[in-house]
């Protein structure tokens, strides 16, 4: 995994983004080191997805300096795209192709060499081997999600961006994903994931950082600041309540 050439996995300063006159993010600063996992909490419509979309070159920031895996997503989007793996709300897989065909297609889009072996690796990593040659349409939601994760790790990106990956995953798959992320961090990669699930986020965040996205910015939380786990949970839960906006 090549992480050379950049000190930070993600570095964001003074990020601003609004849709028309609807401000979503403002004065957002964020730093993530290699080998770190950031779990991001936040209520609905608070800008979690928007933040991930900006980091993954899918949306253009209004202001601020960004460095994702060492590159500027606005100026050199393709360099960033090569180095990130994204799991979004949608699977980005075609229903009428098999898992394997989908992965081969993405492998070719990324210009990978040795595609068949990589595809096999990715498929076995998400334990989907027995279903790899079925059409995506015939798979359950959880399995589609797993295939989507396989797609994201296919080109072995140092940085993973996961938007509510727990949605639709069963217990077993969640454990699989947790193991995968841990492995990712241990081998020097980094990951940002958003979640609604306090228990899950707390468990996953144990090894990394926990942040809360609210009020247009990310506030990194240190569990040590709070008296006990219960209080911390309370704080995190309250951050998930959607506020009434005018």
């Amino acid at each position: 995994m090549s992480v050379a050439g950049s000190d930070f996995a993600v570095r964001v300063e003074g990020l601003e983004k609004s849709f028309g006159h609807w401000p979503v993010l403002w004065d957002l600063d964020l730093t993530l080191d290699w080998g770190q996992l950031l779990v991001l909490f936040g209520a609905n419509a608070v800008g979690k997805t928007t933040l991930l979309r900006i980091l993954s070159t899918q949306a253009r920031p209004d202001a601020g300096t960004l460095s994702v895996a060492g590159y500027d997503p606005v100026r050199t989007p393709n360099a960033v795209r090569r180095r990130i793996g994204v799991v979004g709300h949608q699977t980005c897989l075609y229903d009428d192709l098999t898992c394997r065909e989908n992965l081969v297609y993405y492998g070719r889009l990324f210009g990978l060499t040795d595609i068949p072996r990589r595809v096999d690796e990715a498929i076995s990593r998400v334990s989907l081997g027995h279903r790899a040659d079925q059409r995506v349409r015939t798979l359950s939601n959880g399995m589609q999600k797993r295939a989507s994760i396989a797609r994201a790790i296919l080109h072995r990106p140092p940085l993973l961006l996961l938007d509510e990956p727990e949605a639709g995953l069963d217990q077993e798959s969640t454990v699989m994903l947790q193991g995968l992320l841990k492995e990712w961090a241990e081998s020097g990669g980094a990951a940002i994931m958003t979640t609604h699930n306090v228990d899950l986020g707390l468990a996953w965040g144990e090894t990394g950082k926990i942040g809360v996205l609210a009020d247009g910015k990310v506030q990194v939380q240190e569990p040590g600041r709070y008296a006990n786990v219960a209080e911390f949970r309370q704080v995190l839960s309250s951050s998930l309540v959607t506020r009434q906006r005018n």
Partner: protein
Amino acid sequence: MAETRQTELAHADSRESVTPLGPVRRSRDLRVYLVVLGGVMMLADLSFIFWVAPTDSILGDIQRVFYFHVPIAVMSFLAFFVVFVASIVYLVTRSPAWDRLAQASAEVGVVFVTLALITGVIWARPIWGVWWTWEPRLTTTLILWLIYVAYLMVRAYAANPNQGARYSAVVGIVGFVDVPIVYYSVIWWRSIHPSPVVGPLAQANALEGTMAAVLLFSFITFLILFVFLVAQRMALRETEDRLGGIKSAMRRRAESVF
């Protein structure tokens, strides 16, 4: 507490106009000046059209529509050229000022081209005996109208204003590039489908001196009217943006601090 909010609002406000009232007032002065000048010239133009310009020996009084119709049509063309240029500059620089110009000019352009069509139709009736003929310039004008109505629709139906600005800029560029091709294709098409109706215009023979002078004056009058309308529309858009800026600053404040 309220005071800090207010300074923040002033800040949000002043991002649009560096000294809060200066440019706004100046642009309003400019618009007042334009509308007065335009009004006076329009009255003069009307009197020239009715009393100075000679009655056309063949067409009669209806020919006087011409002094309105042609400048309006030409201004709409100018408007779409402005949209074209502003759209390119906007896509390259992403400066909202150019998007405002493009939007204002497109809207005024649609008003002008609508009028060009209406006056054209009114003129065609007594002269050609029909309201409409698929004559090249009429047809091109109609296509132009359709393209720029689509432009305004894209802007209105976009998911958010930023997207609307980009999409409509794309339509503004593609649409304008298309116009010459439409024009030539329609001319060639027309030339092999002679219509039973009389073709274009009788006055291809050179305009008489006075007529030309009145027409020129009419052009200048409509140019001023056009600039005024665009300035007025841009001012509206600026107010919209300022209001939006204030609202968004208030929303930021309203987010309770975690």
